[in-house]
């Protein structure tokens, strides 16, 4: 999968077929995400088209599907509610610029600082939030509303057992919409909530005042969108790498997401990113190359343009049923086992990430705090210092750094004041405060007439120690 030729045309038949399947599967989700944000369906449909086509060209992971997503939709909700849809477009453009710059700076290398526990918290909170976003359509609904939602939900789980080549949500939607139209039941439809697009997306500047105030409104959203979008995209890329046993350029993917979002905003789309579920559908259907992503975008728009009127008749409860399924598959059900098996701190980080996200309704804040928490736990964990005494040799176990210097002093004070040797074979000085502490200790001992010898400092540690010694000696 290295050359341009291979990435585009290495798997033409598989890619075209899979692209068509994914194009079909993208529609219900795009519609539902538009409703989560509270905008016309076209903002999400255009977004899915633009994201798919542009990430196919500029992305780093061939075969990955990017479109309008629930994660990005959930971030956009409050922006649209408070400031309107033009600010959403502006934020999308800015998100793209930030992502592109982050990609240039090598943001992918930062991914390794996001531990699994935080990512688990992220996807679980995402699943819960998508589920909760569907509740307003159900609570207080009529009997037909419930019936249609529940039957759709059942169908999307049962159909794949018999038909695998066509996405189950699509079959369920067609079936349930047909039934609804025939039976003449009165249900809220997609058409009631907004108009379907009938033209290709066109270039438009967002209608916002170009002031500093505007920037301060959209900037926090753009940052949150950038983090959420890159996180989900790079996670999806990792999963696809593993599934297809191929490598991908994650920084290129970040830049590709950036380009796609910037253009997307100018062409009337809401911010998007990679979709893990759709990407898996693509791989399962035989899609591997860039062509599959490209075809999915083109086919989606083609369908919407010719079938817009039919799509507008889909009853909302049917879409709600599909989205509940999406929320169930987004949630990682293995998490309960993870909670039992993983170290307590990791479980705690996972739960905290979920709780913070649910409390703040902000995926980005949850992830950032989750990463900080796990870093803190890591420091706390690694700062445990033990001293093994063997005659006059005191052997230090564990790194000496700002978090463990106190432990070092406390431990050393316990020992009698004979001459002794401090062995750093299994330890090292990691920062100034470590060098300072060791130096202070040695000086104190000398002042009391106790001879101390420090041995087995590694190169870095002795350099730090020497430097400190010199500076104090001046």
């Amino acid at each position, binding site marked *: 999968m290295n050359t341009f030729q291979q990435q585009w045309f290495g798997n033409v038949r598989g890619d075209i077929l899979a692209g068509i399947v994914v194009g079909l599967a993208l529609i219900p989700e795009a519609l539902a995400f538009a409703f989560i944000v509270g905008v016309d369906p076209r903002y999400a449909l255009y977004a899915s088209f633009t994201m798919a086509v542009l990430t196919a060209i500029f992305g780093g992971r061939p075969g990955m599907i990017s479109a309008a997503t629930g994660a990005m939709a959930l971030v956009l909700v409050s922006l649209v509610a408070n400031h309107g849809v033009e600010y959403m477009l502006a934020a999308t453009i800015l998100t793209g610029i930030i992502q592109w710059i982050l990609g240039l700076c090598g943001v992918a290398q930062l991914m390794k600082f996001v531990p*699994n526990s935080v*990512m688990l918290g992220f*996807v679980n909170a995402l699943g819960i939030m998508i589920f909760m976003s569907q509740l307003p359509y159900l609570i207080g609904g009529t009997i037909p509303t419930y019936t249609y939602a529940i039957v759709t939900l059942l169908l999307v789980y049962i159909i794949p057992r018999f038909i695998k080549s066509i996405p189950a949500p699509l079959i369920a939607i067609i079936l349930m919409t047909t039934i609804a139209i025939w039976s003449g039941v009165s249900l809220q439809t997609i058409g009631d909530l907004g108009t379907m697009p009938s033209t290709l997306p066109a270039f438009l500047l967002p209608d916002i005042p170009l002031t500093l105030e505007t920037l301060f409104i959209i900037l926090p959203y753009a940052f949150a969108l950038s983090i959420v979008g890159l996180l989900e995209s790079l996670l999806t890329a990792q*999963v696809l790498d*593993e599934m297809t046993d191929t490598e991908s350029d994650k920084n290129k993917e970040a830049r590709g997401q950036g380009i796609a979002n910037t253009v997307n905003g100018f062409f009337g789309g809401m911010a998007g990113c990679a979709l893990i579920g759709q990407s*898996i559908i693509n791989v*399962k259907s035989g899609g591997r190359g860039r062509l599959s992503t490209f075809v999915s975008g083109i086919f989606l728009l083609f369908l919407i343009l010719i079938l817009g009127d039919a799509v507008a008749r889909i009853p909302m409860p049917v879409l709600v049923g599909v989205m509940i399924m999406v929320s169930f598959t987004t949630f*990682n059900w293995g998490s309960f086992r*993870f909670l039992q098996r993983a170290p307590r701190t990791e479980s705690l980080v996972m739960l905290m990430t979920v709780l913070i996200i649910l409390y703040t309704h902000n995926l980005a804040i949850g992830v950032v705090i989750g990463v900080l928490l796990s870093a803190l736990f890591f420091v706390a964990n690694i700062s445990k210092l033990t001293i093994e005494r063997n005659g006059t040799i005191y052997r230090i176990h564990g790194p000496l750094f700002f978090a463990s210097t106190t432990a070092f002093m406390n431990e050393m004070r316990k020992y009698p004041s004979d001459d002794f040797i401090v062995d750093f074979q299994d330890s090292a000085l990691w920062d100034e405060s470590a060098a300072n502490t060791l130096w202070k200790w040695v000086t104190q001992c000398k002042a009391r007439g106790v001879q101390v010898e420090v041995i087995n400092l590694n190169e870095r540690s002795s350099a730090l120690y020497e430097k400190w010694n010199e500076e104090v000696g001046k």
Partner: protein
Amino acid sequence: MKIGVAMDGSFHAERAAKYAIELASKIEGARVELLTVVTYDQMKKEHLLTPSHGTLEVQRKKVFKRAVEWAEEANVELKQTVLKGDPSKMIMQYAEAVNLDLLVIGSRGLNALQEVVLGSVSQKLVKHIGCPVTVVK
């Protein structure tokens, strides 16, 4: 001669492996190929639940554990392969790619319900695979 065994961690698959190993021990130059398949859905779920890629590899090969012991006892040459994707499809592709002479499978997999609802992987393999198949009951 290459004798493939499809394994999914079930008791039936282990019996199939035992049979294949016994068979191979009686044939000069025969090799047993242990096969298992992780589905894409499984991979998505596992991705965040395991600390590292290496752990995953080890975990996936766990289904071979007893078969490996038996093969060592019987002094039979063994190859372990983890495939990714749709189980019956991937096993068929693999069988063709390496020219398996025989595939040994258990009569049913992990889940009795699967048999009723899905039509088992075993059934599909028996119907569509290009090489001879032995179903161990």
